[in-house]
């Protein structure tokens, strides 16, 4: 059965992307400050989910410890600024480099297993960071968190203005998504998808499955760290909850609900999770329970997520008899 003509599908996606981009660029012009800020938070969640998707969707490596990189970068940047008074150019660089290095180390440990073993190891490692953030009060202030942070001023921009922060975050998000898209479509990305589908065959073809996975793990950690920096700039505050299983789970459900293994999936999933978290939970007040139900419903009824579901619907629509 012939597939839908690919160029028609691609054209639709191109126009959709442009439309979304145009709408997104226009938001600060007609939306109030609250919504502009909320949209900035959504962008940050999109980077977090997209980076996790490299592991889950393209690598076939389900991780429940991705909050590690968001939280670690946030804490390092905050600590360097508050305790050592370093300027943000340095705190950002050190936070990114340090977190990426930790991602490399965590990857060495977690990749001793695959599948469920990998999942448990990423979870355990992330929990160690979380527990440490609570207990190492002299460094992290424990349950109080670190406050009193400022936003950087790259190129003299005043990021305390919501609209300016918005466009800055948008620019970083577009850059991140573009680089991630290039990564996924590159020869390396093709090899990565191959290791997800048939690791033994890939080995037999000469690919080093472990190295491919490790490099991806590090790259995913890097972008997780980027989302962490934007996160701490936005909130000007960091708390151990950002390293929690809940944070990792939010990222994971965003990826799965949107559709892992697609580029748009995590973005849609992250948007939905953020909307649920901020709007619905203010009425119900039980975000954890809602998150739990979302997990259960998605896993049972929509395991592929939204984007593949929509794609399938579109293809069936295209193929309908005239």
């Amino acid at each position, binding site marked *: 059965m012939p597939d839908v003509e690919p160029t028609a599908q691609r054209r639709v996606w191109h126009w959709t992307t442009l439309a979304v981009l145009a709408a997104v660029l226009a938001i600060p012009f007609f939306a109030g400050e609250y919504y502009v800020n909320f949209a900035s938070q959504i962008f940050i969640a999109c980077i977090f989910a997209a980076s996790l998707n490299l592991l889950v969707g393209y690598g076939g490596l*389900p991780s*429940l410890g991705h909050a590690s990189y968001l939280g670690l970068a946030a804490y390092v940047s905050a600590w360097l600024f508050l305790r050592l008074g370093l300027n943000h150019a340095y705190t950002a660089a050190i936070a990114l480099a340090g977190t990426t290095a930790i991602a490399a180390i965590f990857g060495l*440990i977690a990749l*001793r*297993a695959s*599948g*469920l*073993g990998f*999942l*448990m*190891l990423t*979870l*355990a*490692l992330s*929990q*160690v960071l*979380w*527990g*440490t953030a609570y*207990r*190492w*009060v*002299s*460094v992290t202030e424990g349950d109080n968190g670190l406050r009193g942070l400022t936003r950087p001023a790259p190129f003299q921009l005043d990021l305390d203005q919501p609209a300016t922060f918005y466009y800055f975050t948008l620019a970083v998000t577009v850059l991140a998504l573009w680089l991630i898209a290039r990564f996924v479509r590159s020869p390396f990305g093709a090899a990565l998808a191959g290791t997800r589908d048939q690791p033994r065959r890939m080995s037999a073809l000469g690919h080093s499955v472990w190295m491919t996975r490790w490099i991806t793990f590090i790259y995913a950690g890097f972008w997780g760290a980027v989302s962490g920096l934007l996160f701490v700039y936005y909130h000007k505050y960091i708390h151990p909850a950002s390293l*929690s*299983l*809940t944070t990792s*789970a939010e990222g*994971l*459900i965003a990826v*799965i609900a949107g559709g892992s293994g697609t580029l748009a999936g995590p973005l849609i999933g992250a948007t939905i999770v953020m909307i649920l978290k901020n709007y619905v939970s203010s009425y119900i007040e*039980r975000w*954890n*329970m809602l*998150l*739990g*139900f*979302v*997990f*259960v419903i998605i*896993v*049972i009824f929509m*395991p592929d997520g939204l984007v593949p579901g929509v794609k399938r619907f579109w293809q069936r629509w295209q193929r309908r008899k005239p």
Partner: protein
Amino acid sequence: MNFWIIQTLNSLALGGLLFLLAAGFSLIFGLMRIANLTHGALFMLGAYIGVSVLRYVPNLWFAALVAAATVALFGMLLERYVLRALAGNALGQVLLTLGVAFIIADFCLIVWGGDPIPVPTPESLRRPVIVAGVPFPAYRLAVIAIAFVVGIALYLLMERTRLGAMIRAGVDDMAMARAVGIPVSRLFTLVFCLGAALAGGGGVIGGPIMSAYPGLDADMLPLALIVVILGGVGSLVGAFVGSFIIGFIYTFGSALLPDLAYVILFLPMILVIAFRPRGLFGRAHA
């Protein structure tokens, strides 16, 4: 010297509690290949149920039994009607247990509120006992004894009964076990209930030491995880040894380097993964 004795006994008590939690987790993972992330929440649910039971019947052991039975029942429903529907989808099952854990956590918050609820120590065990010249809470000694008794009982179950033989066969080679006619579905439900019962009962038994509070699940789950990573999945001996190793490291770590107790837990886990990725007593699956 006193310090060392007290901390050693504390380590043993914590290890005992962890064993009640980790044994179930390890068996469920080993037999059913389900990383049951609900396990910490089941422990907490048990603790809260115990609290409620104690309001009517002030007997801790009775409360522990009721909690164990209730949590086991919940576990049975969860396994039979929900997890089984996702058979073959290992990741889906894990995510489902995670979702259920979140639901239970908020449920407990709704029902029992946000303040920690202390669990009273049984009257008979309130006096301190002198151990090697040092007074030590009798209750904690009782916890150690309970863990040993449960450990021996589980060991006898696994090694001396037909049921145990079937479980071990399933852990070693599921396909072969099925082929030989072992009623795998019933076994799954049984093991899941057993694990849940241990967690729920363990929550009550741990009550006098830890209280029932929101976040108990999040505090216990990572410890159970590290125990199982260390000891090896599906191994009772591994869960036993691992629980006490972690009990010691965590207790002494918290006493000597309180800020870094969690990081110290990290180290044995890394060593084991580097040199014996299957855990100290884990076995490669067929």
